[in-house]
């Protein structure tokens, strides 16, 4: 067997294994997707995989479940609430973390080491520990059950890791870039805006993905600080309450679940290239 054929074989084997794993992982999601389009009777009588035989038989697929979930079961409102919660709860902590990481990385100030150590310490505090004291404060301030309250909570929980990750990346930028900028006449803020920010796009994007997904999928924090009021409940809270009242109606639950997955998928696929791309290549000869 020549070297080339053995390489093709081993690569083929690797690809087969990867594809198998991917398919295995996808099966539950595909099941959810198909079930969400099936009429209630069919769901009760047969498994979702029976659809696979005759994919384009329109009698066996319907949009009724989505219509029902969105308009009558409050998922539409909850979906909107989720966005109202998630977008600021991603932007606020990342903006603060960027400034903080730049300061920690490149500025000298009193208490620098202390702030940094405190930050590391905060990384290991489990968020469950904070519920009671924070909720008491929120109650006093009237923030409980409101959007600003949960923005604040998610920002707080997201900040330590975000600062730490951004600190690692920003403090690793070549010193000469900062020297050069300062000779070119850039103030600290200019340097942040024109040098640090553009060069941090990949790491900010990946952090944004994590923070977005974490807030979007969060049930616990929302339940604690927002309660179940339909006005403010995000989609996760809404679905969990649907499980209580519509536990038997799989076609409705799967439709609601699939609605809640869609934004995560969009976010991931639109920003995923930032996971891979290293924008710094070529700035400094190594």
């Amino acid at each position: 067997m020549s070297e080339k054929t053995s390489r093709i074989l081993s690569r083929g084997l690797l690809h087969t294994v990867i594809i198998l794993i991917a398919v295995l992982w996808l099966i539950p999601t595909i099941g959810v997707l198909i079930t969400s389009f099936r009429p209630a009777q069919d769901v009760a009588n047969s498994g979702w995989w029976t659809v696979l035989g005759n994919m384009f038989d329109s009698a066996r697929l319907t949009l009724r479940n989505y219509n029902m979930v969105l308009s009558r079961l409050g998922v539409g409102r909850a979906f909107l609430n989720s966005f109202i919660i998630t977008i600021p709860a991603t932007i606020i902590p990342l903006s603060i973390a960027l400034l903080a990481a730049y300061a920690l990385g490149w500025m000298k100030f009193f208490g620098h080491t202390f702030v940094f150590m405190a930050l590391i310490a905060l990384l290991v505090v489990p968020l469950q520990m904070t519920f009671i004291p924070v909720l008491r404060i929120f109650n006093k301030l009237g923030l409980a059950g409101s959007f600003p309250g949960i923005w604040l909570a998610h920002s707080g929980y997201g900040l330590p890791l975000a600062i730490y990750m951004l600190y690692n990346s920003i403090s690793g930028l070549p010193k000469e870039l900062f020297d050069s900028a300062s000779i070119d006449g850039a103030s600290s803020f200019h340097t942040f805006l024109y040098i640090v920010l553009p060069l941090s796009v990949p790491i900010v994007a990946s952090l944004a993905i994590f923070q977005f997904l974490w807030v979007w999928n969060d049930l616990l924090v929302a339940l604690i600080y927002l309660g179940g009021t339909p006005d403010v409940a995000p989609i996760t809270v809404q679905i969990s309450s649907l499980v209580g009242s519509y536990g038997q109606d799989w076609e409705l639950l799967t439709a609601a679940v699939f609605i809640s997955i869609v934004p995560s998928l969009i976010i991931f696929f639109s920003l995923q290239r930032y996971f891979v791309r290293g924008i710094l290549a070529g700035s400094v000869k190594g």
Partner: protein
Amino acid sequence: MAKVLLKGVSKEFGKVIAVKDFTLDIKDGEFIILVGPSGCGKTTTLRTIAGLEEASAGEIYIGDKLVNDVPPKNRDIAMVFQNYALYPHMNVYKNMSFGLRLRKVPKPEINKIVRRTADLLGIGELLDRKPKELSGGQRQRVALGRAIVRDPRVFLFDEPLSNLDAKLRIAMRAELLDLHQRLKTTTIYVTHDQLEAMTMGDRIVIMNEGVIQQVDTPQVVYDHPVNRYVAGFIGSPSMNFLSPTIVKENGNFYAADKDYKLKIPGDKAKLLKDYVDKEVVLGVRPEHIDTKATKRDHDPGGVFSASIWVVETLGSEKLVHIRSGEKYTLIARLDPHADIKTGETVEFVANMNLSHVFDKETEEIVF
């Protein structure tokens, strides 16, 4: 354009003294080179002039203005870094115009200056490229361009050529000199490469352990080093050092060891009267050693015999490592066609008129 004056400048990092009592008067339009081994404080000095480091003591003047408390951006200087420090996310045009944009120069003006400078440096076609799409030499030019567009009063170069390959380095050396002749901007250039220092500088400043050793034109530094350090640092291959004892016989002075006895020329001998019977350091440059056979009008006092250990043939010359006994090795720079073979014992002659003697304790030059 401006003169630069440093008066007793020191820089300490905690307990480490990086630069000590640095005083230097740089003339308007001068190309001055700071040279020394790594860690000698040359880059720190440059960064202090730039304002990137604060001087612990002393005064820095650019033009007639004391700039110790002036931030880098207001010192009217431009700096080129060893690794170029191009902004990786900006194209060449934006890299070059960054400083001008921050200074709110009108757009048409910026456009004119950047294009003119890019053409001057031969990078006019590259303005839309990102740094990572450029070769090392092109990046170097962009970094230069970024410095030039600002039309500063002083250029600061921090080892700008050391990331380039040998051939490009020689080409860029000439280009930099040509550029300096055209722009006539005061230039302070840091390098660890003594060859760069010799070929480029109007004057060179040799530093060691944070202290200036000597400041002078390349030829003077080469011919008249002030101490053993400078003598050994400048020149390649470097000066040969021997440790003879000075002996006086019949009114003549000799530098003698077990294997050789070299006569000190009369006019220099009188400088050695305090060194009789003491050990000194004798320095002889490789080109001042010849075989006795080829050197017709040689000084008979400089003859010694040694065996040939290694011969390096470079085409334009032969570098011959010679040994006498086990005690010392010297390098001689000989004619490429010199007829010598490894292992032979040959009579050599050292030009004692051009040799130097250093005090063994202080390492200062005696002559």
